[in-house]
């Protein structure tokens, strides 16, 4: 608790933190509002070529809302915001050299790492709880009695989302500790998430034997894959392969192993390096 309260003293008065958190929720809200329009635009487009038109999608009813909103909240472009917060909060300690101040004043190096992990955990938890409350509210507004009875069916997606957030933020934690430079860390992390991994995907896809195997195990994709598809009955019918209907333990395990290894590397290197 002492470490967390020190972190809160650093974070709460920090304007940049609130600005990025604000931007994150703004994007999230926009994404949620637009999601239905986007999906139904797709349905309309498809309907032009179908003899029997598909019904419009409704995203926000139980239990599908859990899967749908956690899916939209965990696409790369949205996920990157909290990761940037984590990178800034950690690299700031190096650029302001406050990490030296902390160590000199009697924090151990392990405590310093641990305090940042607590920030990562709390951030993931708070974002998940806020999203959960939003989903609960929207779901209650849009659901009829029949779907209400299925309310808890898709709850594994909330836990899955928390794991997504937690592991992805651990990746950001890792990059921040390794690079120590705010601009460089944000640039590389964003580049990797949004460009490098998708490019690897297309390269690996070319010979079809590779499809969905190696790529599945790349760090960021392993996070994304926890909630891989939205749950839209109309689209389910359209595509002939089975869409996921729950979060699997296996899907969670891959990014968690990555995160554990990264945390281990941070402990080992940070304890050896000069500050």
């Amino acid at each position: 608790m002492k470490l967390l309260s020190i972190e809160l003293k650093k974070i709460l008065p920090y304007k940049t933190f609130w600005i990025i958190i604000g931007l994150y929720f703004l994007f999230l809200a926009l994404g949620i509002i637009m999601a239905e329009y986007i999906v139904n635009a797709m349905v309309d487009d498809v309907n032009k070529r179908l003899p029997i038109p598909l019904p419009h999608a409704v995203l926000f009813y139980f239990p599908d809302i859990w899967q749908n909103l956690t899916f939209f909240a965990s696409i790369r472009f949205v996920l990157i915001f909290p990761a940037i917060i984590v990178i800034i909060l950690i690299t700031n300690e190096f650029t302001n050299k406050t990490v030296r101040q902390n160590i000199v004043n009697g924090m151990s190096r392990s405590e310093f790492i641990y305090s940042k992990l607590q920030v990562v955990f709390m951030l993931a938890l708070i974002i998940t709880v806020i999203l959960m409350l939003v989903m609960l509210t929207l779901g209650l507004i849009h659901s009829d009695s029949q779907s209400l009875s299925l309310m808890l069916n898709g709850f594994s997606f909330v836990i899955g989302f928390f794991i997504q957030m937690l592991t992805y933020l651990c990746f950001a934690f890792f990059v921040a500790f390794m690079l120590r430079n705010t601009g460089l860390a944000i640039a590389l992390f964003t580049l990797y998430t949004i460009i490098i991994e998708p490019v690897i995907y297309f390269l690996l896809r070319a010979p079809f034997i590779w499809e969905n195997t190696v790529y599945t195990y790349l760090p960021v994709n392993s996070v994304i894959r926890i909630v891989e598809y939205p749950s839209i009955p109309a689209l389910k019918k359209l595509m002939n392969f089975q869409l996921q209907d729950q979060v699997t333990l296996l899907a969670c395990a891959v990014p968690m192993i990555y995160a554990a290894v990264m945390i281990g590397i941070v402990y080992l290197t940070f304890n050896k390096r000069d500050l």
Partner: protein
Amino acid sequence: METILSINQLSKRYGRIQAVNKLSLEVVKGQVFGILGPNGSGKSTTLGMILDLIRPDSGSFTWFGEHPSKESRKRIGAVIETPNFFPYLSARKNLEIVAKVKDYDNSDIERVLRTTGLYDRKNDKFKTYSFGMKQRLAVASALLNNPDILILDEPTNGLDPQGIAHIRELILQVASEGITIILASHLLDEVQKICNYVAVLNKGNILFSGEVHDVLAISDCIELASADNAALKAAIEAHPAFHSIIESDGILLVVFSEDVRPGAISEYLHQKNISLSHLTERKRTLEQHFLELLKDNES
């Protein structure tokens, strides 16, 4: 005497540069210990190692007779190379973080803000401070809850004369309260004014250490000139108490290893048939003396 810090054969190398070379020293309670050396002599590296910021290649040290730990660091107040604080937090908030890390409550914050003259600006953000104020905040954080030992790395570097005087006064005041101090500086007069014990550092090695008035004892030098400076030089170098000589603008600056009066020199040279056109006694500046200490060691 109670040993506060004991360093044993500490070494650190950066690539080709041996920043600190098998350095050993001991600081006992109540000492005001100066680490004196030119820029790059390894002062900050040494302090960084004993504060757990820099990993030594070899060697060891103990704090308060114990294996160093975070608990021992909580008893130390340190001003390291640059003032390191959160730019968007006020002085007060920054000190609250320091206090929290050290397991103190906030009751001593007002006092150190007053002592360092920051009280009126305590609610202003750190980034709005002048360099002098930032440095004073660093001193304030080091003084929090009266540490057992105060470590200062070039605390007056980059300050204006007024700022320098203020910081030195503060240090002297702390010293007078009996708090042990380690002061790293490249300024001889600073060490001489503040410290009672000194280790002279060059290229990572301790050249001398001891009581300040022994190590930094000043001998005067004598300016000489004659029609034939070459003969004069030869004669002077043959003097039994000769130490060193510097020639500039036709004048020889001579240092003797013991006190030699100008009259005696004149006499001595007269016997060697050298008549002087110039003879004055000159107080050497402390810096000259310091440079000579370093030069002696190289030859």
